[in-house]
């Protein structure tokens, strides 16, 4: 087993708004060369770094929009998000919770700050990660995995130096709470100041980290501050993350699907013809209807 080294450390790019409720830094796929192909199966990552929203009667958010061909993983660190879809489904993603939504053949939904939270306002911090689906599963039925924080499986680090929440995949024998279509590991690593965690992930898996809180060193190397994104190289398996203060790090690693990617807005398919079909299906109401 060899050491997996850092390929690149990236600071957050200029934030932009998705709707009026999500002030995000995009890491995947634009900028820094983190294309859908390079990061396969991760095709989009928007990071709402900690941002204070003032209280408002009319919840901020993003209006009705469709998805097809992939999964959206929403990780709420601070603040609460309410969502509704055209099948009548809905719910609230609370602090520490994860919503793993398989859009697959199609979901029409909207996402807003939860009403009561929005009224008060407060710090909001969130990640939305899109995980691609292999061609054979792109048109499978949509589904949700709503993971409340208390139900997420954990690995306790020695000497009370922290814990690893295993959202998906496996960590040191602890199985992830969410099921995935292709091999994906997704962890929230909570590390106390001075604590460290070791990771062993296949060399060919595309692997990255996002420092949500605090600061860390990777393989005892350069210091990575809050809100920075780390791309790991594709040689070697093992790396360590050491916290230089109390920290929270999102770790993602996935086996590349290796299929052609055709993407346009909220649709990620394999061919242009499938994109055109998705557009037509959306226009013709096949995703259902939802009032803004």
């Amino acid at each position, binding site marked *: 087993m060899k050491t997996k080294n850092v390929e690149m450390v990236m600071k957050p790019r200029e934030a932009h708004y998705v709707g009026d409720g999500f002030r995000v830094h995009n890491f995947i796929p634009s900028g820094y060369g983190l294309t859908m192909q390079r990061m396969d199966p991760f095709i989009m990552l928007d990071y709402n770094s900690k941002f204070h929203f003032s209280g408002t009667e009319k919840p901020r958010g993003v209006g009705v*929009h*469709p998805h097809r061909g992939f999964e959206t993983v929403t990780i709420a660190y601070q603040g609460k998000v309410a969502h509704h879809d*055209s*099948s009548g489904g809905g719910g609230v993603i609370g602090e520490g919770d994860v919503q793993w939504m398989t859009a697959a053949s199609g979901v029409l939904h909207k996402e807003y700050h939860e009403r009561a939270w929005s009224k008060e306002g407060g710090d909001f911090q969130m990640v939305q990660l899109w995980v691609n689906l292999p061609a054979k599963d792109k048109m499978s039925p949509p589904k949700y995995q709503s993971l409340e924080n208390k139900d997420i499986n954990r690995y306790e680090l020695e000497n009370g130096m922290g814990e690893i929440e295993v959202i998906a995949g496996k960590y040191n024998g602890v199985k992830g709470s969410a099921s995935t279509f292709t091999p994906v590991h997704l962890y929230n690593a909570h590390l106390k100041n001075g604590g460290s965690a070791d990771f062993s992930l296949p060399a060919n898996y595309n692997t990255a980290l996002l420092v949500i809180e605090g600061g860390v060193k990777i393989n005892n190397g350069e210091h990575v501050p809050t809100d920075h994104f780390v791309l790991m190289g594709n040689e070697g398996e093992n790396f360590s993350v050491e916290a230089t203060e109390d920290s929270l790090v999102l770790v993602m690693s996935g086996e590349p699907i290796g299929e052609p990617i055709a993407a*346009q*807005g*909220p649709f990620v398919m394999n061919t242009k013809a499938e994109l*055109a079909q998705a*557009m*037509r*299906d*959306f*226009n*013709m*109401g*096949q*995703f*259902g*209807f939802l*009032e*803004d």
Partner: protein
Amino acid sequence: MIYSDMDSNFQKYLKTEWGLSAVDIVNLEPFFHSEEAKKGDILVRKGSRGRSFYFVEEGMLRMYDISEDGREHILHFAPENWILGDRGSVYFDEPAFFYIDAIEDTLIVRFDLAMMDQLTNLCPDFRENNDLLLHNHIRHLNRRINLLQGATARTRYLNFIELYPDVLLRVPQWMVASYLGIAPESLSRVRRELAKENFKP
């Protein structure tokens, strides 16, 4: 050149539509200008004088007027590969009759009649082909007037999604309703009816 390593949409357009070679395009370069417009930027203001056409490289423009009661009426959307210009000002040197603004951050290629003259020199069939394009445009406009005069909201909508497959995903509903000449509630009703017929959860 707009991009060094790959053809821009505009270069592809010149090559496929007008059969221009890479050398022709270099010769044409003094006649067109790449620019960026931010979402909300007004490129043409009603009553202003300007003689430019805009090719949309990436993003979207719209052309509209504001009626006496203060409402916006959208005449055209121009997503990627569309060309938009106020023909009154470009061809007849009149004050612009319409507004043109960017509804997304947009990369545009601006040109005027001098480029058309240059294209005539570079491409022997230019005038003839351009005539055909113009007639096609008029044909579309005639059908549009016909739809606005008598078609149901549903028929207007179904025509719209053929012409503009991805615009509904990119602009607010009220803009689509404005283009269709119907109330936003009517657009909602049509879309709800279609969902009722076609949505199988």
